[in-house]
Each structure stands twice: as C-alpha cells, then as structure tokens.
C-alpha cells in the first residue's frame, strides 16, 4: 500500500464490538455491586445498631431503678422487723439491760417527751375519777 494518508480515506473504525445487550445489563450489574463495595453504608448501619442497643440499655436501666429501690427498701424494713421480733420474743434482754444502753442524750429526749404543761396535768387530775382511789391507796 503506497501513499496511504489517513485524512484522505474514509474514517477507519476501531473495529471493537461488544457482546449483544452488553450495555443493557451493565448498569444493573454496577448498581448491584455498589452497596456491597460501598463501605459508607456499613458504618452507618452499625452506628444505628449501637444507638439501638444504647437506647434499649438506658430504657432497661431506668425501668429497673424503681424495682431495685423497692427491693432495697423492703429488705431493710424486713431487717428492722426481724430484729424487733427477735428482741421481743427470743432475746434474753431485760428492761434493765436496755436502760443501761441509754446514754445522757436519750434520757434528755425522754424528759422532753414528758414535758407536759401544768394546766394539762390539772385537767387530767380534776377529770380523772379514779384519782381518789390513788390518793387513798
């Protein structure tokens, strides 16, 4: 072939072809691959998961607080009751023993408790019908 000049002959196409319907299915093929390969989606999902777990945890803890408190309170009350019952029914502790345990402060408190006004005493004395009997005896 002599005097071949590219711009003097009709354009030569590259000659490359594709299988039939190649482009019809290509974009679908790519779209299917995107979510798998796109790493942005994965952390977004696990973030939501973490938040869901966190919210569930907060919810559970806040629910369990009243229950926990209720259990705690009733158990201490029970303890007091048990001690009282024990002291009353089983312990060999006399009144004298208990009095020995009282300190000055306790005694002061008791004194205040009995701090009754004179007028009240008078009223009780004057209205109490059994009074005479006490005086006599």
């Amino acid at each position: 072939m002599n005097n071949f000049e590219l711009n003097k002959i009709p354009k030569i196409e590259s000659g490359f072809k594709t299988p039939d319907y190649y482009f019809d299915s290509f974009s679908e093929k790519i779209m299917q691959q995107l979510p798998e390969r796109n790493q942005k989606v994965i952390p977004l999902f696990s973030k939501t998961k973490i938040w869901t777990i966190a919210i569930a945890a907060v919810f559970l803890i806040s629910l369990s607080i009243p229950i926990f408190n209720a259990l705690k309170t009733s158990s201490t009350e029970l303890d007091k009751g048990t001690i009282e019952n024990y002291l009353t029914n089983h312990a060999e502790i006399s009144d004298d023993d208990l009095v020995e345990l009282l300190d000055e402060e306790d005694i002061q408190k008791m004194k205040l408790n009995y701090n009754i006004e004179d007028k009240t005493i008078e009223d009780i004395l004057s209205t109490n019908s059994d009074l005479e009997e006490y005086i006599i005896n």
Partner: protein
Amino acid sequence: MEEKDFIQKLLNPKTQNEAFQILLSQYQKPLYYHIRNIVLNHDDADDVLQNTFIKVFQHLKGFKGDSKLFSWMYRIATNEAITFINQKAKRNGTTSEALQSKIVENLKADSFFDGTEIQIKLQKAIVTLPEKQQLVFKMKYFEEMKYEDMSEILGTSVGALKASYHHAVKKIENYVNSN
C-alpha cells in the same frame, strides 16, 4: 450550574442511586470504548469499566468540582486502564508494549473485533507508537474528542496534543506504506 446540581444529587443519599444511574447511562458507552481502545480485549475492558464506575462512586465525596465531571471520570478510566495493562504485563513477566503487540497480533481471533485487513493494520501501526502518542491518537481519531477536552483529561496543553497527534499520524502512515 446544571452540573453542580447534578453533583449535589450524586452526593445526596436520597437521590444518589437515581443520579448514578443517569451517570451510568450517559458514560458507560464512551468510557467503555475509551478503555477498550487502551486494553484492546473485551473481558479486560469490562473489568476496567466496572472498577472505574465503582471508583467514581467511592470518590464522589472527594470530587471538588475543580474540573468537569466528564474529564474527572475519563481521567479515572484512563488511569485504571493503563494500570491494568501494566499489572497484566507484570504478571506475565513482560513489558506493556510487548503485551500490546501480542494482543494486536491475535486480534483476528477476537470474536468481538471486526477484523478487516485495514483495521488490523491500523492497530498494528498504533502499537508501534510511544504510549502517550497512542493515547492521543486513539482519543482524537477513534473517539473524535475535542483537543480542549483531551487537554483537561490528560493535563497536556492543546498545542502539545496537536503536535503529538500530527506525529502519530505521520508514523502510522509511514508504517502502513512500508508494510
């Protein structure tokens, strides 16, 4: 302005898939032939085209809009194709030039190639050119791209591209005349 809106659609998770599908339908054909002209065989072009679109999708967030979406995508496709050829040559223990020559020699057997005598001769002539001249010739002659667009994609001045194309044409004509 329109391109800016389109890029916003590509970045918005709600409109992303729809916009990407538009991008695919607009660019799959031209990018395929651009890649095919470099890697020469269909299966390789299919692999590289898939990688190109996945890379485009993954890097959309980083696309600053300094260049046109069109030239940015062509740049990714070109880099992917050239990297592919180099890696394939390395795997086969040869150079990319030798590999290209071998593929062109076997073009006749390729079922996805027309295979007329002048077409094969032209491909044989092209592989004798330096890599950059090959690229410039293919983009100008086969893809009929404007020099301005080529300049944006390849980062070379229009003047240099014109000179490159002129040299390529002369070398190809010489090759065809003497073979």
